[in-house]
C-alpha cells in the first residue's frame, strides 16, 4: 500500500516536472497586435471561433497553443508562461488561478450579461456549458436497454460482464484534469459513484486521457460504453460517426463550464478582454455553436433544467478537490476501485 502510494506520488511529481508541454501550436497572423492563447480545446474545435473573432477584430494576430489542463495550470502557476488568455475545461484549476492571485479582473457589458454562476470574481468567465454524457456503441449494445441513471447502469454492467469486460472506457482521473473534475463532482452528487467505479474496475475498465479517443474507440467497436465523456465532443462526432449514441443520465448530469481567464502576466490585456467579450456573447452566434459543437452559456438563466443539469459551481468549493491531501485520498480510493488486481 505504502509503495503504491509512493509510486503514485512519484508519477504525479513526474507529471508535474514535465508538465508544461505544448501539444499543438497554431498561429493566425493578422494585424499588429498579438494575442497569445493557451487552451485545452483542440485547435480543430476552436478554429471557427478564432476566425470569426478575427473577422470582427482584423488587427489582432493570434497564437493558439493547446496543452492538457494540468499542463496549462503548471504553465501559469509554476512557470509563469507568457500568455494573454487561458481557456480551460478544468474549472477547478481556473478557480485556483483566480484565487491565488494569478488572474486579472476584467469587467465589460458582455461579462455583466453572463449569469451569476458563469463567472467568478470577474476573473473566470464560463462561456460554454458542456455536459458529461455516456456514449454507447449501438451494435455492441444490441437489444440491451439504455441505462437512464447510474443505478440502472450499475445493474446493467453487473448483469452483462460478457459484453462489457474490457469494453468500458472512462477518464484516467490521474491524468485528465477534466476527468478528475467530473469524477469528484460525481462523488459529491451521488452515493453510487464509488459502487459504479468498483463495478467498472471489476470489468477491467480501460482508462483514457481524452474524450476524443474514447469516442473513437466506441465508434470502432473497441468499447461498448464510455462513461463521463464530454457531451459537446460526442455530439459533434455523431454527424460523421454512425453507430454511436449519446445518453444523458436522468438522475443528474454534471455540466462543465469551459472558462477563460486573463493571467496576471498578460501583455495584451485589451485584446484578451475583447476575446472574452466575444466568447461571452457566443449565445448570440448559433452559427459558431453549430460549427464548433460547443453549447454556449445561455444568457437567460431559465434555459437550464436545474433538477437534472447541474452546472458545476465556480467558487472556492472547487479548491477542495485540489487540496493535495484530498486529491491524494481521492486518487487512492479511485485507483483501488478501478485497478483491483
Amino acid at each position, binding site marked *: 500500500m*505504502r509503495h503504491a502510494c509512493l509510486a503514485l506520488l512519484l508519477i504525479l511529481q513526474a507529471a508535474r516536472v514535465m508538465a508544461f508541454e505544448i501539444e499543438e501550436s497554431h498561429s493566425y497572423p493578422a494585424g499588429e497586435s498579438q494575442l497569445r492563447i493557451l487552451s485545452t480545446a483542440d485547435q480543430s474545435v476552436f478554429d471557427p471561433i478564432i476566425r470569426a473573432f478575427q473577422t470582427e477584430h482584423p488587427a489582432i494576430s493570434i497564437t493558439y497553443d493547446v496543452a492538457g489542463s494540468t499542463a496549462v495550470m503548471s504553465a501559469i502557476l509554476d512557470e509563469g508562461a507568457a500568455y494573454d488568455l487561458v481557456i480551460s475545461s478544468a474549472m477547478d484549476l481556473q478557480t485556483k488561478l*483566480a*484565487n*491565488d*492571485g494569478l488572474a486579472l479582473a476584467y469587467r465589460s457589458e458582455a461579462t455583466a450579461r453572463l449569469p451569476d454562476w458563469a463567472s*467568478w*470574481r*470577474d476573473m473566470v468567465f464560463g462561456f460554454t456549458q458542456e455536459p458529461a454524457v455516456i456514449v454507447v456503441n449501438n451494435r455492441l449494445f444490441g437489444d440491451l436497454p439504455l441505462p437512464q441513471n447510474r443505478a440502472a447502469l450499475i445493474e446493467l454492467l453487473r448483469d452483462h460482464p460478457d459484453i462489457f469486460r474490457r469494453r468500458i472506457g472512462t477518464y484516467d482521473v490521474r491524468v485528465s484534469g477534466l476527468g478528475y473534475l467530473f469524477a469528484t463532482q460525481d462523488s*459529491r452528487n451521488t452515493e453510487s459513484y464509488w459502487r459504479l467505479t468498483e463495478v467498472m474496475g471489476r470489468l477491467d475498465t480501460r482508462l483514457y486521457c481524452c474524450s476524443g479517443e474514447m469516442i473513437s474507440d466506441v465508434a470502432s467497436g473497441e468499447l461498448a460504453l464510455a462513461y463521463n465523456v464530454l457531451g459537446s465532443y460526442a455530439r459533434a462526432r455523431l454527424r460523421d460517426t454512425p453507430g454511436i449514441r449519446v445518453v444523458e443520465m436522468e438522475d443528474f448530469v454534471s455540466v462543465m463550464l469551459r472558462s477563460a481567464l486573463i493571467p496576471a502576466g498578460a501583455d495584451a490585456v485589451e485584446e484578451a478582454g475583447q476575446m472574452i467579450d466575444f466568447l461571452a456573447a457566443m449565445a448570440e452566434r448559433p452559427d459558431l455553436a453549430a460549427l464548433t459543437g460547443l453549447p454556449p452559456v445561455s444568457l437567460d438563466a431559465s434555459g437550464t433544467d436545474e433538477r437534472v443539469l447541474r452546472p458545476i*459551481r465556480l*467558487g*472556492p*468549493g472547487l*479548491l*477542495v*478537490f485540489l*487540496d*493535495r*491531501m*484530498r486529491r491524494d*485520498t481521492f486518487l487512492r480510493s479511485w485507483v483501488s476501485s478501478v485497478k483491483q488486481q
Partner: protein
Amino acid sequence: MKTGAPSIRRRLVLQLALVAALLSVAFFLAVRGVAGNATEQTQDNILAASATSIADALYSESGAVRVEIPYSALSMLGTVSEDRVFYHVIVDGETLTGYDDLPLPQGRSGSRAPVFDTYSYRGDSLRAVVVTRTLTAANQPRFVQVVVAQTRLGLEAISSRITTTATAVGVAFFLVATALSAFAAQNALRPLSRLADAMARRGPKDLRPVSAEAPAELAPLVGGLNSFMSRLGAALGRSEDLIVEAAHRVRTPLATVRTQAEVVHLQMEKPENRQALRQMIRAVDESSRSAGQLLDHAMVTLRSDHLETEKVDPADLLRDVVDRLGPTAGLRDIAIHLELPDAPLRIEGDPILLQNAVRNILDNAIKYSPAETDIRVSMEGTGTCRMTFCDQGRGFEAADIMRLPDRFSRGSNVGDVVGSGLGLTIVSDVARAHGGTLEIAPNPEGAGACVTLVLPCC
C-alpha cells in the same frame, strides 16, 4: 418682519435642526458601527465554522494525521461573496496541507476558542481564524492547527453599502426632522401670531383688555399689555378732559373781558380812548380765536390718532358752518354764496373734526377778505367730495403754498392781520386723518384764492 430682527421661530428651527443633525450623525455612526461589527462577526462566524468543519474532518491513519477537507468547508465561504480563500493545516508545526506560507493568526493563545486576526497576505488584507485540535496518532498526541483565511472585499462591499444606506437614512431623518421642527415652531408660535393679529386688527380707540386665550408663557406679556392699555386709556381720557376744561377756562373769561370792554367802549367819549378799547377788543377776539384754534389743533391731533367715524352729510356740515359764520361775515358786508349739489353725498368721518376743518377754512376766508366781497362755497363729488371755498382776498404767494399747512406758518403777505398760523394746519391734519387732501389754488375768477378740501366719499 424686519430683516435682522431676531426671530424666535428662526432660532427655534435652527436649534431643532442642529439637534436633528447631531442625532442624524449619531444615528449614522451607531448604524455603521453596529452593522460593521455585525458583518465582521458574520464573516468571523463563517470562517470559524469553516475551520471547525476542517478540524472535524481530521483523522489518523497508520499513525499519520490526515484530513479530508469537506467540500462545504470552502464552498460556504463562497456563498456570501466572491472573496479569495486560503487555508493551512499544520500538525506539530509542520504543514500537512494547504497554503504552506499562510501565516498563523496571532492572538491570545492557550485557549481552545478560535483566534481571529487580520493580516496582509499575497497583496490582500485577510481575515483569518485558527482552530486548534489535539489528535492521537501512533499513541502520540498531535497538536493540529487549522487556519482558514478570506479576503475582505465582500465585507468592504457590504460595509460601503451600509454606509450608503446609513447616510441616506441619516440625511432623510435630518430633512424630515427639520421639516417637522419648522412645523412645530410654526405651531408653537401660533398663539403669539394670533395675539399679534388680534392687536393689529384692533381699532385705534380699542383699549379693551386682551381677551384672546394666551398660553401660560405669554400671560405676563398679556397682563402687562392689558395694564398698559388701561393706563393709556385713562391718560387719554384725562387729556381730552383737560382740553375741554382748558377751552372753557380760557374762553369764558375772555368772553367776559370782551363784553366788559364793549360796554366800556360805548361809555367812552374820547376818540383816542375808544380807539384803544377797539384795539383791546380786537386783541381779545384774536386771543379767543387763537386759543380756540390751539384747542382745535390739540383736539384734532388727539382725535386723529383714533378717529371716531360715522356717516356725515357734508352738505349739512357746510350749511351749519355758513349759518354760524354768516353774522361775522355780515359785519363786513361779505356775502357767502353756498352752492350745493342736488344729489346727497356721504362722508365717513369724525363730524367734530370735519366741522373744525370747514370752520377754519371759512373763518380764514372771511378774515382775509376785504369788505363787500363775495365768498363762494361749493361742493361737488363723484367718488371724492370736493368742498371749495373761493374768496376775493389777497390770495397766496406761490412760494407760500407748500409750507402754509405747517404749524405756525403764515403767508408772507399777511403781516398786518393778526393770526396764529394754525388754521390751515388744522385743515391739513383733518384731511390727512380722513385720507383726503388740501388743495390751495388762485381763484380762477380773479383776485383771491380757492381752498379745496378733498375727502373720499362713500
